[in-house]
C-alpha cells in the first residue's frame, strides 16, 4: 500500500529526513517511535503534504502511484488521513458542517452519494458514539476552545467519518487521560480492517498496549535506526532510547 524509498526532506533548508525506507501493506499496523525532535512527526506531515516541508529526494508510492504528484487534498480523497498532534482551531465553521463537507467531498470523489444535512445527522450520531463524544461538540466551531483531549477525540471522529485506507496518527496519546486513551485506542482498533493500514507515531510506548503494532521502527536524526516486532516497544518501555542510539553509533545500524 505504502512504499517509501530513501525519502529525504527539509524545513527552511535544514534536512530533517535523511533517507527513510519503509514498506507498509494493507492490514498492517506500524509504529514509529523515537526521541523528541527525531523527525517522527515530520515523516507524517511530509506524507500528507504539509507546505512547510520540502521533499528533497527519494520516492513514495501509495497504491503504486507517486504520492508527490498529488496535492494534499487529493491525497486525502485518495484515502490518506493524518490525525495531528496539534489540530488547528477554525472559528465560525461548525464541526458538523465541516465533517459533512469533508465526508461529501470524499463521497463525490469516490462516486458515492453525498449526504444531506438530515442524513448526515443520523450518520454522525452513530460515529460520535464510537469516540464517546458529546453531541454539543458537533455544534461548536471546529476545535475552537476544545481541550487537548477533545481535539484528539475529534481527530479520531474525522478518521471514522472519512474511513481512510492509510491512517497516520501523530502522538494520539498527548493530552489524553488514561480513560480517554483507552476509548480512542479501542475506536482506532475497531476502525482497522484488512484493507487498511495504520501508522502510529508516538514517543511513549503506552498507547501501543491498546493499539498493538506488528512492526516497530525507531527513528532518530532523520533515519530509521532499528526495526523489529512489537517486542521492541516493550524493550523501549524498559530501557529508553539511548541504547538504540548507542548501538547505531557503534555501527550496529542495519
Amino acid at each position, binding site marked *: 500500500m505504502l512504499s517509501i524509498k530513501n525519502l529525504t526532506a527539509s524545513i527552511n533548508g535544514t534536512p530533517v529526513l535523511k533517507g527513510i525506507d519503509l514498506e507498509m501493506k494493507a492490514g498492517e499496523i506500524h509504529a514509529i517511535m523515537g526521541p523528541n525532535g527525531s523527525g517522527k512527526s515530520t515523516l507524517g506531515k511530509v506524507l500528507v*503534504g504539509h507546505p512547510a516541508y520540502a521533499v528533497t529526494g527519494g520516492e513514495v508510492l501509495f497504491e503504486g502511484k507517486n504520492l508527490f504528484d498529488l496535492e494534499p487534498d487529493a491525497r*486525502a480523497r485518495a484515502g490518506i488521513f493524518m490525525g495531528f498532534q496539534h489540530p*488547528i482551531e477554525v472559528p*465560525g*465553521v461548525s464541526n458538523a458542517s465541516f465533517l459533512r463537507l469533508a465526508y461529501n467531498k470524499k463521497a463525490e470523489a469516490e462516486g458515492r452519494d453525498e449526504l444531506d444535512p438530515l442524513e448526515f445527522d443520523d450518520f454522525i450520531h452513530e460515529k460520535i458514539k464510537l469516540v464517546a463524544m458529546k453531541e454539543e461538540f458537533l*455544534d461548536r466551531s471546529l476545535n475552537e476552545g476544545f481541550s487537548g483531549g477533545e481535539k484528539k477525540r475529534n481527530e479520531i471522529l474525522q478518521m471514522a467519518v*472519512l474511513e481512510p485506507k492509510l491512517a497516520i496518527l501523530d502522538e494520539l496519546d498527548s493530552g489524553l487521560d488514561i480513560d480517554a486513551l483507552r476509548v480512542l485506542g479501542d475506536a482506532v482498533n475497531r476502525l482497522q480492517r484488512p484493507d487498511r493500514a495504520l501508522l502510529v507515531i508516538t514517543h511513549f510506548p503506552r498507547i501501543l498496549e491498546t493499539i498493538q503494532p506488528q512492526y516497530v521502527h525507531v527513528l532518530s536524526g532523520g533515519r530509521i535506526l532499528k526495526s523489529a516486532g512489537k517486542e521492541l516497544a516493550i524493550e523501549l518501555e524498559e530501557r529508553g532510547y539511548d541504547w538504540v542510539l548507542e548501538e547505531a553509533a557503534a555501527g550496529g545500524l542495519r
Partner: protein
Amino acid sequence: MTLALTSSLLADLLGGARPAEWEALRLGAEGRLAGRDLPTTADEDWKYTDLKALASLSFGQAPRATVDISGHLLPEMVGTRQVFVNGHHAPHASCASAVQAGVRFFPMSTASEACHALGSVPDGGEPGLFEDLNTARFEDGAVILVPRNMRVALPLHLLFISKAEDPIAIFPRVLIVLERGSELELVEEHHGEGTYLTCPVVEVRVGEGALLRHERVQRDSDEAFHFGTLKAEVAKGGQYHSRTLSFGARISRQQPWVRLAEGADASLDGLALLDGHQVADTHSFLLHAEPHATSHQLHKCIVDGQARAIFNGQIRVAPHAQGTDARQQSRNLLLSESARMDTKPQLEIYADDVKCSHGATVGQLDPEELFYLQSRGLNADDARNLLTYGFAGDVLNHIPVASLRRSLRQLVMARTQADSLGELS
C-alpha cells in the same frame, strides 16, 4: 435664513425649509454647521476616508415612494415592524399589531416634543457634522419606549429603505429609551437602491439594570453614502450589546459613542465585508465613566478588490473608573493585493486599577488552517472560501434572531464564494 457655508454640498442639504418641530435643537445644529465644511483627509479624524466622491454630487430632497418589502420581512417580527421609505414613515408597509402592550413603538412624526428627550444623550465633544445635518433636517424616524421592568418578548424590527431615482439625502432619526429593569431586542436594517446619502442618528438610553440587544445591518446600495451616528448612555448595571454588520455603500462610516455608568456592560461588535472600491470606516468611542463597568469590542473586516476599511477604536477610562474591564480586538482579513486596512486602537486610561487589553491583526488566511482543511479533502479554493466564511460567521453565529442569522449567513456565503459548499451552520 442664510447660512455662511463654504461647501455647496452642505448648503444644498440645508437649503430646504427647516422642519417645524424641535426648533431649538435644529437652530443649534445649524449654528454649528454654519462654520463648517466637509472634512478632508487633512483632518486627522478623516485621514483615510476621502469624501471627494461625496462632495462632487448634489442631493435633492427625498420624495415619498412605495417599495415592495416582502423580501425584507423576518418571520419573528412580522407584527413588530416600522418601515421608513426615503426617510418617510410607510404606514401601509408597517405593522405593529404584535407589539407587546405597554411598549411604545411609533414614528417620530407622531410623537409630541414634550414626551421625550431627543438630543439629550450627552457627548464629550462637539456633535459630528453628519449628526448635526441629521438634527437640522430629519423629518421622521422611530421612537421606542419600554416601561420599567418590562421584558419585551418579541424583537422589534426597524426597516429603513431608500429608493433613489436621482441622488437624494435621507436623515433617519431614532430614539430608544429603556426604563429601569426592562429588556428589548431590536433589529435595525438599512437597505436601498440608487445613489443617496443617508445620515441616521440613533440615540439610546439604557436605564438601570436594563438590557438592550441591538443588531444593526447596513445593506445600502453600492452607490450609497452612509454616515451613521449612534449615541448610547448605559445607566448603572445596564447592558447594551450591539453588533453592526456593514455590507453595502460606496462609502460608509459608523460612529458609535457609548457611555458606561457604574457596573454597566457593553459589547460593540462589528463586521464589514467589502469589495470593489468600497470604503467602510468605523470610529468608535467607549467611555468608561464610572467604576466596575465592562466592555468587549470585536471588530472584523474582510477586504477584497480595491476596497479599504478603517477602524479607530477609542476607549477612555475616566480617573475614578476603577475596576474597569475593557477588551478590544480588531481582526482583519485582506483578500487581495490592493485591499487595504488601517486599524488603530486608542486607549486613554486615567484610572490605575483597570484591566484593558487590545489587539489588532491584519493579514491573509492562516496557511496552517488552510492545510488542515485540505488534509481533510477540501481543495484549496474550497478551503479558502470556508475559512473566509468562518472568519465572518464567527460574528454572525451569535445573532439571536434565527431568521436574520440565516439570511446574513447566506449573504456572507454568497459574498465569500462559500455558497458552493452547500448549507453551512
